[in-house]
């Protein structure tokens, strides 16, 4: 395991003891190091590995926004370092394959920045989870592999994620990180499949005006349905 944990346990007041306890639980840092943080005194917040995101503003789009010319009126707040880790993590979740590009190639990291910088309650709540989670991931990568998550190999990245990506099999004590992964995946997948590339990949072919009557299912779709109904012992409605 990595050395130099003294300097690397960089946790600000916000992430606090619960994150330390979680780090302890995976037991990749020396006990002596963490114990001194678990006393009554909380040390002054040191710099974070990924820097501190800018304060989110209170600029909302309001209750009468222009629906035809939509704009995001608030500023992005994530640091370059946070975006770098987010970008790597997006691509582990949605990598390039034969059908569509990786998430980072279609702007998903920027969308995550848009989301966590938004002024609304759900997004504020996600912000806490996402930014702390990215910091944790980077800390873990440096501790375990001596490398930034962004520079770690796919097997190393997978090793970290497998601790938190499967709730039923997650490493005990990592409930916050499991929630982080779930929320980050939600944002990544939602953002990716709403892009043109993602929408094409998944096979959505609507949003086009049809002249005349709605044609209903294609012959191929109906044939498939007929097969399904046959398996169920049901007949296709007349």
């Amino acid at each position, binding site marked *: 395991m990595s050395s130099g944990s003294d300097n690397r346990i960089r946790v600000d007041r916000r992430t606090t003891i619960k994150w330390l306890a979680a780090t302890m639980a995976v037991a990749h840092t020396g006990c002596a190091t963490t114990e001194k943080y678990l006393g009554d005194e909380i040390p002054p917040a040191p710099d974070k590995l990924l820097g501190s995101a800018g304060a989110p503003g209170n600029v909302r789009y309001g209750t009468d926004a222009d629906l035809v010319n939509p704009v995001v009126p608030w500023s992005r707040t994530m640091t370059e370092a946070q975006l770098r880790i987010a970008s790597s993590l997006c691509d582990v979740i949605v990598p390039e394959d034969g059908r569509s590009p990786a998430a980072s190639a279609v702007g998903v990291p920027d969308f995550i920045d848009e989301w966590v910088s938004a002024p609304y309650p759900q997004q504020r709540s996600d912000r806490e989870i996402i930014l702390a989670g990215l910091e944790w991931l980077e800390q873990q990568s440096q501790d375990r592999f001596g490398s930034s998550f962004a520079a770690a190999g796919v097997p190393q990245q997978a090793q970290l994620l497998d601790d938190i990506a499967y709730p039923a099999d997650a490493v005990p004590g990592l409930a916050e990180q499991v929630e982080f992964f779930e929320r980050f995946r939600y944002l990544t997948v939602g953002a990716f499949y*709403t892009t043109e590339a993602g929408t094409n990949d998944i096979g959505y072919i609507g949003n086009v005006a049809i002249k005349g009557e709605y044609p209903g299912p294609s012959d191929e779709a109906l044939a498939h349905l007929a097969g399904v109904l046959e*398996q169920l012992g049901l007949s296709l409605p007349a």
Partner: protein
Amino acid sequence: MQEQYDAVVVGSGAGGAMAAWVLASKGLRVLMLEAGRHYDPYRETPMFAVNRDAPLRGTGTPDKEFGYYDATVDGGWEVPGEPYASAPGSEFMWWRSRMLGGRTNHWARNSFRMGPYDFKPRSRDGLGVDWPIEYEDLAPWYDRTETVVGVYGRNDGLENHPDSSPGVLHKPPAPRVGELLIQAACNELKIPCIPARRAVLTRPIDNRSACFYATGCGRGCAIGAAFQTTTSLIPMALATGKLTIVTDAMVYEVRLNDEGKAEGVGYVDKITGKHEAAFGRSVVLAASAGETARILLNSKSESFPDGAANSSGQVGRNLMDTVGAAMGAQFPLLENRPTYNEDGAMGMHMYIPFWLYKEQARGELDFARGYHYEFGADGRAEPGMGIAHIAGFAGGYGRKLKEDMRRYYGSFLDFVCRGEMIPNAGSRCEIDPDSKDRWGIPTLRFHFKWSDHELNMVRHFQKATKEIIERLGGKLQSGDVSPEQAISKGGQIIHEVGTTRMGDDSATSVTNQYGQTWDVRNLFVADGGVFASKAHKNPTLTIMALAWRSSDYLAEQLGKRSL
């Protein structure tokens, strides 16, 4: 000298716009007052806009609860500066919209006729009250309303689900895969599954086009296919030259003269903040069941210390909403199914009408009224952020996840319960003694509770739905929850009605069968407030049919100068 109109209509939604058009087309001079701003659906509707172009991919926020593109202006569950409250032990949600056309700009367009049983519920089961009219009294106006509005559907001749007259309905769109699957199970289970009825044109009417099967109705419809008053009744009424519209006019009272007749209304001009008045030979309140009750309760005078037209004490009482519940399931047999354009009419093509009237009449059910099913069967809808729930279902990440997304997309179906609530003494609204809005107008406080009839109905829906899902090899995704957990909150289905109910007796109702208040004979109500019961059928079509019938009567009385 203030201008005097033949009618001052408060509200521009389903009831108000219908009243204004009917009266104006008979040559009467009408003033329409709308609390929200002017709204131009031809210019403001984000037709074909995709989620990726909206902030947060269009996800709902406190500013836009139903999503960025939803055609609700300055509204939602909260309206800035216009609070309402729920009494201790109650939780009521009140959706408002501050725009010309009101909530008709975004509604689901589901349009079912109430049937003979629905107008005489007390005669049938001893609960609630009967309406002062029968189905046959309203049937001609249903035909007329459907003709003007444009409703797709089919006549199936089912018990208590009336047919329309020949030629009235538009041809319903072809069912999609999910709907055919459910229909196949229903056919075996002896449950009717028939074309839904929605206020969406499938043939053109005047300058309104037929549906072209794309872009969600909830954002409004710039081609006029999905009915909203801002592309139909309001332009039609304006074309008569008899309608004047004033927007940003927040009506707060009905003004009565010394003879006890309505002389007009008082309102706040929201732009200037000034108090203004408008005068007419008659006043028609169509501000929504909640807002109309609020106006009446706030119209206190010596002759009406408890609010105008409230000698019965019934204003604000008998508040009802539709019973709501939903269950979702995933169907392995629908995985990896072939893709095709599943947008359709951007709403349901098929539904399940209530089918257990005989069992109910025989006392075999532990709930007294009906419910119907609506489906979320457009499984291959345009992706929004919600598509990420598939990832939660599939689990994991990486290329496997991408394969799973393709596999599971379109394999989920939603089943929605929409049921009848019976009025009860614990459900009502009143003026909150402790609260005023930004203009100093006292606000509403709601009391709400469900009875065992509604909870037992939800339990029945849960059981019936499980049978359908199991028959189709589906996996329930919504969990096993109690009816108490599953039932919607009061107001959440946005079908609030009953607060100024009509009846035969001035002691127990607020208006007669024409929405004419018993106490003030030139004061009418033309919104959902007049409902004496709340059938499971979505109320908008009935609001419009009643508003038309009442307006015909009002016009006749104005003509005779008998008000």
